[in-house]
């Protein structure tokens, strides 16, 4: 019974994704004849034509660059700030923490129009830094809220021992804290990567030039441009989700573990 329900639920979750992936192996005439059927025969031409198109790889590259840069920025800035919030005693620490926590209530939707104007004033329209910098800033609250409990959990004795051995607080940070907080760091890094990979609203405002598009915009433009060629749209769509899926399945355990830590903390 348990297995039946679980199987059914998984089927619902996977069905639409499978429809996209499998639909890419069909031809348009197959799709028109029976929209819900399986490929017969399987056709690789859609996938091949997408893989051979220059625009797909350009957009894949743009997505990869902005996701990696966002992840690196979020992790570096997030670990440093969380370390201060977790392990330094100073006036205004609560205020600083609240400032970042309040950031959870400022989703990009609210700030998008002035953000667009700000990026335009900075001369970063149609460039990847124009989406990377805001993405780092908007990913910081989640990162800090997940990381602070992780860093706080590092035993005080460890810090004292390191101090006795002559390590400064910064030395302790680089030699002990960074390695010990790796699970939390990986969790937040993956969340930032996936959020950037999937981000739609910000690129929609900032990137107007098709050569600067990231994949989400690319998928939408492709779907509009080839709206009659359903099979090719499906192939393009399924290829564009692969990196995020791979990234996620590699680190699934870490994400669940990281969320556990955050919920407990």
């Amino acid at each position: 019974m348990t297995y039946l329900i679980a199987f059914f639920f998984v089927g619902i979750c996977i069905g639409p994704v499978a429809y996209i992936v499998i639909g890419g192996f069909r031809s348009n005439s197959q799709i028109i004849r029976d929209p819900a059927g399986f490929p017969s025969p399987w056709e690789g031409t859609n996938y091949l034509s997408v893989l051979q198109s220059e625009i797909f790889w350009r957009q894949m590259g743009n997505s990869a660059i902005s996701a990696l840069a966002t992840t690196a920025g979020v992790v570096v800035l997030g670990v440093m700030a969380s370390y201060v919030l977790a392990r330094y005693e100073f006036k205004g620490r609560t205020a600083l923490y609240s400032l970042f926590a309040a950031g959870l209530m400022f989703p990009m939707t609210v700030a998008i129009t002035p953000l667009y104007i700000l990026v335009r004033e900075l001369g970063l329209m149609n460039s990847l830094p124009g989406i990377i910098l805001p993405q780092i800033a908007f990913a910081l609250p989640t990162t800090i809220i997940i990381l602070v409990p992780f860093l706080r959990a590092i035993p005080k004795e460890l810090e004292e021992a390191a101090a006795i051995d002559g390590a400064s607080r910064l030395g302790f940070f680089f030699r002990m804290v960074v390695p010990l907080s790796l699970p939390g760091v990986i969790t937040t890094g993956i969340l930032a990567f996936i959020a950037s990979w999937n981000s739609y609203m910000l690129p929609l405002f900032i990137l107007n030039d098709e050569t600067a598009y990231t994949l989400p915009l690319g998928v939408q433009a492709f779907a509009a441009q080839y709206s009659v060629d359903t099979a090719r749209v499906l192939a393009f769509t399924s290829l564009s989700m692969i990196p995020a899926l791979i990234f996620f399945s590699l680190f699934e355990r870490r994400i669940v573990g990281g969320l556990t830590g955050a919920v407990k903390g």
Partner: protein
Amino acid sequence: MSDSLGENTLTKTSPEGRSRSGGGAVTAPPPVRRGRRKGPDWRKHAEIALLSGPAVLMFLAFVIFPVIMAAYYGFYRWKGFGPPTEFVGFDNYLAIFRDSTFHDALLHNGFIVVMSLVLQGPAAIALALLLNQRMRGRSLVRVLIFVPYVVSEVIVGTGWSLMLRTTGAFNALLENIGLESLQVDWLANPDVALWSLMMIITWKYIGFAVILFLAGLQSIPEELFEAAAIDGASYWQIQRRITLPLLGPTIRIWAFLSIIGSMQLFDLVYIIWGQYVAATAGTSTMATYMVVNGRNAGNYGFGNAVAVVLFLISLVVALVYQRYVLRRDTEGALTEGKKK
């Protein structure tokens, strides 16, 4: 890259902030060893500034500053070029509150908030309880149910709109299993479209709820269940008396995230229904209203006013929720933070 950028800007910041919002930009040049004679306190503050400064600056520049600017622009009629000059006071806000398409969008948002909680919550708790049992392939199941959450909104939107169009796979599937009578135009029919949106939202985000609840369940000590079982409690008694209360904090945090997410919903609607159809199909949200009437129409002042309204509504909801629901969960964290 962004790290070094942050540090460079840090040295340029004016001395302030420590007394104001606490330790972000402290009055210190970059810490070098020669400052030692001033004692460890000086060094500590320098370290605090060095470590937290870049993050604080990024956050202030790209999150707080735009939000403040939205409030400022909202008082102007402004096409987005040059400095705004045409001050119109609360005209933009009056226009928003008189616009019936905004009322519709607000209603849709309310519907989405409530239905997300009603549809996802109980189902996700039940599924988490189910998947928390020892079973073969549990970790694989956990990966698979998270897939819709990981897939981007654009892909979900593109995929579902292809499936749900009248000649799409969904109607064909209904025909294949003999339910032709249920076939409708899932996306354009105003009676159905909002429910189609709810179906897609539930599909996309329920995996996140399940994973969150599973994480919460796993943090409940095993001994509690054992002790209850020894005392003769049945499976359902254990779930009702132990699991659900202890899962409370997780459920409340999930509900908070879900409410905020529903209020800000933009991507899926904009991708599936586009900028013109959402209003007629009855799926427009405050955020799509903002983009369509603000940026797309070139009325940046008006768009910012909508953003402010959207923000204030979310803020009020969030504050009320935190005051009355989340209070007991955050009490511990706050008192801990207040220690000086």
